């Protein structure tokens, strides 16, 4: 039997990797993917807590997270596509027209 904690630690590790990825990747699509990774990590926590607690609310939450992720992706990619059409670049560092 694997200790629950391992799942949670794995989840935390993945979450952190995703968060760090957002900080160090410059391609906005990859940044966005890192955010998705963070959501996935949270999902793992939800499922693990469910098993630990013997409930199902966590899984239902994962379900909602999936919906949200889908919606976010749709809107987010639409924005990214719009911006790419204009600049032909997805480099986050080049988007600094608005600053200070």
């Amino acid at each position, binding site marked *: 039997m694997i200790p629950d904690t391992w799942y949670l630690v794995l989840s935390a590790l993945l979450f952190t990797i995703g*968060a760090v990825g*957002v*900080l*160090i990747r*410059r391609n*906005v699509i990859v*940044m966005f993917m890192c955010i998705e990774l963070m959501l996935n990590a949270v999902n793992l926590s939800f499922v693990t807590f469910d098993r630990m607690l013997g409930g199902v609310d966590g899984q239902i939450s994962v379900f909602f997270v999936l919906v949200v992720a889908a919606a976010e992706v749709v809107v987010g990619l639409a924005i990214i596509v719009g911006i790419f059409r204009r600049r032909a670049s997805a480099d*986050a*560092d080049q*988007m*600094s*027209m*608005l*600053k*200070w």
Partner: protein
Amino acid sequence: MLLLIPAIPLAGAVFLLIFRAKVGRFAGAIASSAIGGSFFVSLIAWSELLNRPAESRAVGGRVFEWIAAGSFHADFTLRVDPLTAVMLLVVTGVGTLIHIYSIGYMASDERRGTFFGYLNLFAASMLVLVLAGNFLVLFLGWELVGLCSFLLISFWSHRPSAAAAGKKAFIVNRIGDFGFLIALFLIQKTFGTLDMVEVFARAGESPLTGSLATAIPLLLLLGCAGKSAQIPLYIWLPDAMEGPTPVSALIHAATMVTAGVYLVARAHVLFEQSLIAGGVVVGIGIATALLAAAIAISQDDIKRVLAYSTVSQLGYMFVAVGTGALSRSALPYVAGIFHLVTHAFFKALLFLGAGSVMHAVGDETDMKKMGGLRKALPVTSLTFIIGWLAISGVPPLSGFFSKESILAAAWEHGLPWIWVLGVIVAGMTAFYMSRQVFLTFFGESRVAADVHPHESPPVMTRVLQSLALLAAVGGLLNLTLHHGTLSKWLEPVFTSGVHIEATEAATPLGLPEVVVSAFIALVSLAAIALAYRLYLAPGAEKARTRLKGSLGYFVRLSQKKFFVDELYNSLFVWPGKVVARIAAFGIDAKIIDGAVNGAAKAVGAAALRMRMTQSGLVRRYAMAMLTGAALIVALFVVRVR
């Protein structure tokens, strides 16, 4: 009724100032009749006093409640007692004459209306001063005469020197008033009132002790020194000669400048509280008398000589009233007041005479450019000579009597050195006045070729004649100090103090009074003779050169007025300006405002720096967020127990 005395000239002043453009040449007449009316009312007041027994010769009281708040209460009180009556008559009497003189003197001035308005305002203020029954009212008059003095000195304000002189007069007086004000606070605190009658009564009942007894009179004295041009505040008076000459006569010779003497006499009860105070009064008086006389000796400006002479004579009066305070006896005061009166006569005469001279020579004031005017100005020169003899103490003119009584009082009350110095001053006075007369009226004419001296109009000469008469016979007022009319009249005023019997011989060396008087007169005559030798007699030039050889240093010092103005400048004015500049442009602009603006700038700089964190780079934003998240989690984690 007493209110009428200042009210008539005040009304005149208001009327003249409002309709100054309309009154035209009637200005002088209106002003003169206003003060004349005042003189008339004063006579009535005087006669009222005469009708009373000597002990209760005081009338007057509250006119209205002036300032009252909390424990403080000051009424507008006017009072007449014999001292005041004398002052009233001098002020209104001499004042009226000078007003009339001014009609002629100012005949061609466009701003006659304003001038006479000011004159009347001055008269009103001066009358408030002398009538005041309350220190605060006295202060009101005190300040108002200062104001009028300022207005009249700088009457020809287009002349920078006139404006500066007016300002100087006012400011120096203010310094004196600083002392006066604090004295008032002390009086109020000590006696709980500023009403003179009450203050004097309380001070008489329970004499003050310690520093308070000295502080009050000395602070008052500072005020007096300002107004009466005594050391250390005499410096304004010579400059005040920038004003029209009648002003110099009225304000800076006859009336206003004597206010200090009047105040010491009036508040003699307070001055008698402390021997130090009396001593200081005497000391300042004699020092001023000497210094001013020493300066007067070498001045070439006809009015400046008279101005320093005034300062010197005022010093004389201070010696008198100081002696009174020191000895707590009445007669020295009387002597002081007596000299005040005679001085008013002859000094007004001299000033007006000088005015007449200037009138004649086209407003020239340098005596070196006069000489021999006796022929062109018969009346002026004659009356001036009377004044000269009077001030020089030549019997039987008035100055002789008044000076003699001051010296006698000093000797009688144990101040032999003062007596000696007084005699010296008397000699010096005779000398420089003689010098003036010789340079102006005698000898050869040094008048510029294009100037044709002419006698002044009758309206001026009549006044000169009247004053000459007064200066000549003024001595009758008090032929002897102990038994004179004026002594009798004034003595009750000064008897409230504690009397000390004279301890030494009543006269120097125990000689008869007549001998002493004769000696003093001789000193004066000798000084006149010396002046004659140096300025008029054949070979005067050579004698002067010789004298300069031995006394050159002194002469130069004297000519430069002992550098007192320069000393004050470098001691107070200049450092004051430096301090002010440091305060204004250093402390205020740099430090305080610099701190304020610096704080603003610092915020601005911080803003610019903080703003840079908003780099526009979304990954930096994420970094900030992640940092924040890590910190918040940490904040919670550390609290987990």
